[in-house]
């Protein structure tokens, strides 16, 4: 389980993230919302130990994150960055197979997991293709499959951090991807996902963290966070909120 205590991050002299106290619960999808530059990716970088904390600390289970050894940490914590720079012609299943690096589960088991993870990310049909021949959205799904394979099948105690996993996807795959993430969390893993689409956040997240200027504004259920007042205050956006006619979760409509 991943916990952040009073976390503060500084870039140069500027404080870019402050006062973050957060606990990612097993089985929960936590969405992070906020305008550009609000510190969402910084938060993700801090939570995975990539950015050193200026103040406060991040804990994985009962140990500070920096005290974990690489492979042990990688079996509990997987991270999907916003963009990837892979520029070599690996085959799709080789890329996903890299997610199995922290394990010695054997070739046969690894191949099963790679196939299952690709299926979960709706990228099974890409198997055998060269990564470089894929479109941006397809690449994004392959990397999602890679981080899913890293924690496959997903259980309590594991954490998945996703930075805008739907940014390049078509509408259908935005939903299939978040559906896969949802199912992954339902098996017990904790998920933190940075999103820009308020309606996707409303539908797939259990809790939402609203960030503005590096500070947490609200951390609550979608029903509480996705109201016109906080959205106006943080995004400067006038919205109508109505219940989804079939599902009941908030539906956000720009005025």
């Amino acid at each position, binding site marked *: 389980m991943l916990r952040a205590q009073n976390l503060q991050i500084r870039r140069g002299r500027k404080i870019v993230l402050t006062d973050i106290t957060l606990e990612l619960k097993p089985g929960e999808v936590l969405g992070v919302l906020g305008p550009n530059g609000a510190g969402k990716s910084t938060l993700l970088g801090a939570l*995975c130990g*990539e950015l050193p904390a200026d103040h406060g600390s991040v804990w994985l289970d009962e140990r500070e994150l920096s005290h974990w*050894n*690489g*492979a*042990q*940490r*990688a*079996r509990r*914590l*997987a*991270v999907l*960055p916003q963009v*990837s*720079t*892979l*520029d*070599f*012609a*690996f*085959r799709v299943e*080789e*890329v996903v197979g*890299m*997610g199995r*690096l*922290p394990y010695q589960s054997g070739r046969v088991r690894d191949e099963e997991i790679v196939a299952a993870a690709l299926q979960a990310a709706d990228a099974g049909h890409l198997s055998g293709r*060269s990564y*470089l*021949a894929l479109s941006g959205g397809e690449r994004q799904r392959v990397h999602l499959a890679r981080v899913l394979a*890293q924690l496959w099948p997903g259980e309590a105690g594991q954490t998945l951090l996703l930075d805008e996993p739907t940014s390049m996807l078509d509408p259908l795959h935005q939903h299939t991807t978040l559906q896969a993430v949802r199912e992954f969390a339902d098996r017990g893993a904790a998920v933190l996902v940075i999103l820009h689409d308020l309606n996707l956040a409303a539908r797939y997240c259990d809790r939402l963290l609203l960030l503005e200027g590096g500070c947490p504004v609200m951390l609550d259920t979608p029903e509480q966070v996705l109201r016109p007042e906080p959205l106006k205050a943080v995004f400067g956006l006038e919205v109508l909120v109505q219940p989804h006619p079939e599902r009941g979760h908030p539906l956000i409509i720009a005025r």
Partner: protein
Amino acid sequence: MTLLIKPRALFIGLSLLCLLAIWLSLALGPVSLPLFDTLRAALRLVGLPIAADGLEQAELILGQIRLPRTLLGLAVGGVLALSGVAMQGLFRNPLADPGLIGVSSGAALGAAIAIVGGSVFGGLPESFGPYLLSVCAFLGGLGVTALVYRLGRRNGQTNVATMLLAGIALTALAGSAVGLFTYLADDATLRTLTFWNLGSLNGASYARLWPLLLVSTGVALWLPRRAKALNALLLGESEAGHLGIDVEGLKRELVFCTALGVGAAVAAAGMIGFVGLVVPHLVRLLVGPDHRVLLPASVLAGASLLLFADLVARLALAPAELPIGIVTALIGAPFFLYLLLRGRA
């Protein structure tokens, strides 16, 4: 880009190619030996009980001249190709070259100091000269690389982009120092310096061979242990870190192996360009970028390429000998351009 051949087929093909290169390299030269005699003499040299009738001359040429030269070619080609793989992995760029981190220019500077300095002080005993040259070249390569690595570090992290730029700057600096030594050199040392910069397997001796064999075997055994980590590094440094790789340690090992391998190769055979750049690229075109295949296959391909290049160097203008660096550049540069233009299309 699709997979052209299966790894197993590639290994069989490359092994056969390498054996053929060894055979020809042992047989051909100013005194060409019949291929079958070469084979018999070579088998006798490795200890098989074969009748010695009429093989005395072949055995002498093989044992004293061709075998050390062939071994030198194998080791230099193999280790240059391996270093190329390591650097292309480190910089996550298929067009990276071992020279990027300053090891070649540092070795050139070391060699220039040894050649010109040795002739200025003049007092060095004849038998010591070649070793001084090798040792200085090796230390020069290691020294400049260490400096490049040091310049790329900040807050305990190595920035490969900074390293790349530091490598360019120090290469220019070392180049100007070499230029200064060239200016100061007299005609005889100038000739030595020039030929050294073009590389050659000529004059291979067991004494100069052992250090290189030791280093290249070490590098060839060590790097494949990092094959999976190198694969992950191609995803990006932070991604590799999230997969549990000790990225800083890996980068340090790659730089160290390259400095050691290229330093030893350059010290033994002078500057030989383009092998480290072209060979890994070629192998990647054939079987894809997986380092578990790429590393061992590059050793075989690099060794074969260098032996064939040496054959050209030996035979093209026989009995005179071309510097091998000219041959590898002649093959390598057009191929590099082809890769560049193909990538743009």
